[in-house]
């Protein structure tokens, strides 16, 4: 239900996306893997226009949006129908956990404070952060902040949630709990596009894996295929450099 075609993006002379096309169906969990600089984060951020792609088209539900000259209406539409989880949590520093989650519900979806609070508390309960609803982000650990970030996105019930390397900024001990929460979200059947390095997560949860390198899609397929029977040499090289968490060679 999201289809990107021919996306191109350059930063000055550096071509970061060199004609990328991907398709994500309703309810699919798609993981995008790739080395730094492969363009995966830029691609993700183009979807909700945190980056502005130079050219290409996006088909979202029944809307067709041209990246070259997107209409302001369309940009706002995408931002209101997608959720985004930031690598560095991106919580509103001056608002409590509860206020962070309620903000979009009240200000964007125009729900009453009462209704918003109910929804927010339910979602916070699901991510295990209800206890801390009156805390400020500066009082929380990275893992806790990220869970709130996920709650904030989920609470708005978007059609698709975009995750930008959700665990890359976390201390290793905190990665596990955050991944558990993301898995939980995946189980609800919502469409997700996740940019990540976490291979075992991808194996567990992804319906499909896309491997990007140097601004193009190199290969895509089911996790099992990509991880154990990669067709492309570049994929093989990338995978060999990342040691899977459960592989322990004696």
């Amino acid at each position: 239900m999201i289809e990107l075609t021919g996306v191109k993006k350059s930063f000055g002379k550096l071509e970061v996306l060199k004609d990328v096309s991907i398709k994500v169906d309703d309810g699919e969990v798609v993981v995008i893997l790739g080395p730094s600089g492969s363009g995966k984060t830029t691609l993700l951020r183009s979807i909700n226009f945190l980056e502005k792609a130079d050219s290409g088209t996006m088909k979202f539900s029944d809307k067709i949006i041209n990246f070259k000259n997107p209409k302001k209406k369309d940009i706002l539409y995408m931002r209101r129908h997608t959720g985004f989880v930031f690598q560095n949590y991106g919580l509103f520093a001056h608002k409590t956990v509860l206020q962070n989650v309620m903000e979009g519900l009240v200000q964007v979806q125009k729900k009453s404070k009462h209704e918003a609070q109910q929804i927010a508390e339910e979602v916070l309960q699901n991510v295990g952060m209800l206890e801390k609803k009156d805390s400020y982000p500066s009082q929380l650990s990275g893992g806790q902040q990220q869970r709130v970030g996920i709650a904030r996105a989920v609470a708005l019930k978007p059609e698709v949630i975009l995750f930008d390397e959700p665990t890359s900024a976390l201390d290793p001990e905190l990665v596990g709990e955050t991944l558990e929460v993301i898995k939980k979200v995946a189980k609800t059947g919502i469409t997700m596009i996740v940019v990540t390095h976490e291979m075992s997560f991808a194996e567990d949860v992804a319906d499909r894996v896309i491997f990007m390198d140097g601004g193009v899609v190199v290969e895509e397929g089911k996790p099992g295929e990509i991880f154990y029977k990669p067709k492309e040499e570049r994929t093989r090289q990338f995978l060999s450099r990342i040691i899977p968490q459960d592989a322990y060679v004696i």
Partner: protein
Amino acid sequence: MSFSVSSFWESLVSALAYAPVTIKLTAITFVVSLVLGTIIATIRYYKIPVLSQIFAVFVTAYLGLPTMVAILLYNIIFMTCYADVANVLHITVPISEVDPIIIGYFVLILGTSCSVSESVRGAFRGIDKVQFEAGYSIGLGKFKTLTRVIYPQMVPILLPGLQNSLIGLLKASNLVSAISVIEIMTGALLPSLLYYSYLEGYVAAALVYWLIGIGIEVIGYLAEKNSGKYLKQVATG
């Protein structure tokens, strides 16, 4: 030492009687300048074409104009042009009935807006870019992101600077005395006109200004205590 306590006292009472003039001038100017200064800074931050360049040049140059020069200059322009402009706009009020404090407001608002805009520009630098993105990502448009996410986070950053600006403004308001507005200083001197001894008047004026300044510092202190609670980091587990 010839310092007459009784004439000092008279001057003090007279000065206090005119304190509201100064306080009103200062307070209204400050509030208006906060709004205008923030608008200017925001326009410059978003690099809105034409306007940001105009403001950049204007603010940079205008900050070089001392308040006293501005007051005298605008006053003379006002007095010279009033008759002709009033004719064009069909204003029937004669110039003698126009309160010169209007010029004072104009001068002070213009100057304070410029310095506030510089403070706010500095505050923008203290806000993490991700706060903008977080606002956009949940669908808040630019205006709502600014008013609900960015500006509130600027408050603790701006408070010390704004407090200084406000005290500076209080002192600058003294200069409207140069265009026949009776404020704290000229108010304090009214009794002196009878006695030829000005020192007591000026000391009384200084005292009243000082007290108001201390009041501002107290308000500022309380404001700083109550804002930025969310900035304090607690050891995390």
